């Protein structure tokens, strides 16, 4: 099974992606499986944290969306405790014109703009609606506790 040129090209272009706070590198020798790192957006409770995700390109990518999941524990109304993400473009609003890069940027944007009215993690969404400040404090707490620090990431690089 040969790998579509598009995947090779996307991988190549992602490698040159430097300053957007997203990083995707091929995991092992499976060229469809990526280790992803997303920096929490500034001004959000996730700021300063580096979140790890896994991304898999199914056989019929780009005609069907990549499968993405948070590996780092995160307190967010649209991300459940298994790390699954409620994001329309990962489901029925997928378009083959989207790419790994745009998907990751969308996920980053979701961190900056949680949507508790369309929840995946019910308890979190409930908290978010009842007492947003408390919920954000928890999110900050979790970020500190579970996410890698941006400074650590810089040291690695």
């Amino acid at each position, binding site marked *: 099974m040969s790998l579509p040129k*598009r995947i090779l*090209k996307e991988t190549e272009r992602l490698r040159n992606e430097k300053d957007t706070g997203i990083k995707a590198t091929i995991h092992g020798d499976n060229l469809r499986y990526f280790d992803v790192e997303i920096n929490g957006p500034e001004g959000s409770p996730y700021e300063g944290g580096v979140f790890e995700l896994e991304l898999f390109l199914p*056989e*019929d990518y780009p005609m069907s969306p990549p499968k993405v999941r948070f590996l780092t524990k995160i307190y967010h109304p649209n991300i459940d405790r298994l790390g699954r993400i409620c994001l329309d473009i990962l*489901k029925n609003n997928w*378009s*083959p*014109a989207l790419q790994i890069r745009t998907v990751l940027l969308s996920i980053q944007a979701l961190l900056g703009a949680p949507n508790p009215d*369309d929840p*995946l993690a019910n308890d979190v969404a409930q908290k978010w609606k009842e007492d947003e400040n408390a919920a954000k404090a928890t999110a900050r707490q979790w970020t500190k506790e579970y996410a890698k620090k941006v400074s650590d990431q810089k040291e690695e690089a």
Partner: protein
Amino acid sequence: MGNSVGRERSYSNPGNGVGGSGGSAGAGRPFVVPASGSSRHRHHHGIVIGDGERPSGNAFTRHEQRYRDREAREAAKAEKERLAAIEREKERERSMREENVDGGFLVTQGVYTGAEDFKHKIVRQLMIERRLAPFFKGLSDHEDDWTDEELIAAVKAELGENDPEENEKKGKGKESTATSPSSSTPNIDHLTVPIASRSRSHSYTSDTSSTSANSHRASSNNPAARLRSKTLSNSPKVSSIAIPTQQLAPGEAVIPGRQVDGRHVWAVLYKDALECPICFLYYPPYLNKTRCCDQEICSECFVQIKRADPHLPDHHQEPSTSSNPASAPAAQSTTGTTGNAELLTSEPASCPFCKETDFGVTYTPPPFRLGLVLQSQQNSPPATTSSSPASPSTPNVRRHHHLPHNAPQVVTTDQIRPDWSQKLAHARAQAARRAAAATALHTAAFLMNSTASSSSNPLTGLTSSSRRMLRRVDPATGASSPSAPNSGSGTPQNGGRSSPNPRPGQSQELLSTAGLQLLGINQPRSSSAGSGSNQAQQVVRARMEDLEEMMIMEAIRLSLAEEEERKKREAKEQQKKDGSGSSGDGAGGEGSAANATSSGETVGSSG
């Protein structure tokens, strides 16, 4: 939601439903079990005791047989598909070898590897009509400053063994493959790019004499080709497209050759190549444009885009990924499930770029014509074949308005998959069938749940009256009066999960009535069991239209019955432990097991 998803799954696949519950369903397929007393005894033995065990041999063999039949059917189907695939592959090779449209191809070039579900004939026709871009070979790389030779070499490298020119020459032009497009000095150009038209055609003229004769014959019928060969007469090119004219479909014609204004068609085409934004390959600047937002999209990607499979309207998220019970449509009731079949929809594909619905594209062909054309188009090309060299750069004129999806020049995704409506109808029919089976299951489950604590028998509404009728003649129960069918002393009275029911007869009666009412029958308490049974069977017939449904339902019902038996036995054993076992219990167990069997016979025969 998890709950209802699980349930949905269990009847979404009838095959698995029957096979999956193997032990119970197989053993319980009563209509294949001889009804003689002894075998029936053995059979009910299997039900009563064989919880989770192998079903009785006879039923098992039949079950196995059915399974094998299905397997054989599937194997035959797979074989048929395999042959079709081989046929398709042959056709593809022939087309690659012999056919082209303006330097592009009429078959996909392998960018996508999944099954092709568009209508090949329609796509082919649209391409010959120049309404859809042909399948040009996509290039992985492209530089604006590549020379003609480098461009040609790049296309050839992508085509590999599929290169029609190479095939014609029986692979004698090996040296062309050595070219690396990026490493070009004039010297290397000369040595390693033999495709550069003159040297190549010179060296291979003798090899291809037959094909050129062939094409001369073709061109003599073809004013366009004659004109072209005249203009190129001082450079004796090999017209490498040689389609025997008799293979052409009526109305089609061929303009042979690979030259446009003395340059190789690929050099002309790929000079200002564009990257398709979906497959990231480089194509000639004659790509399809979306009708809505004027974006380029290659044909290879276009034919991949289609309607989503039939689905229920607008769930903002898929149930399978939702762990949120609140987002589930209020607990799928029986009626809800039934209604869903009609609700199934399938929207036209939307534009991948701007999300406009009714995705469609237009195509502006290059100013020259090569390869297959419609006979009616044949007279126009000569003028353009020798047209001004500037022409390749002109097609990029941007359209400033968007076209409606029903504009005549627009090709939509539905046009190349005209079977979408049929698929939708099929999906609806299937959903309706599933819903019918689901209704039965829900009915049974409802009855069992609502009466499990008070009643010993999980009658499934649908067959309750026939069971009652049969019960009359069942020696084990000793029940003889149709009006009081459950007065039999043998009916276990303590089958409830927790407490023994003080008035089992009455609850049984209520249950039967409830079952019939659930089917929309108002059964007067005074009516005889016989007429009730007829009514019920009519309802059964009306509702269950084919045998398959019956069998699925029967399997479901029997597994429910068996579950109830198990509970009963547990309770009995519990009672025995308590030291209060009685002979009545034993008879009761036997009686209801026999009922399960005989009622199954009734259902089976009515199908």
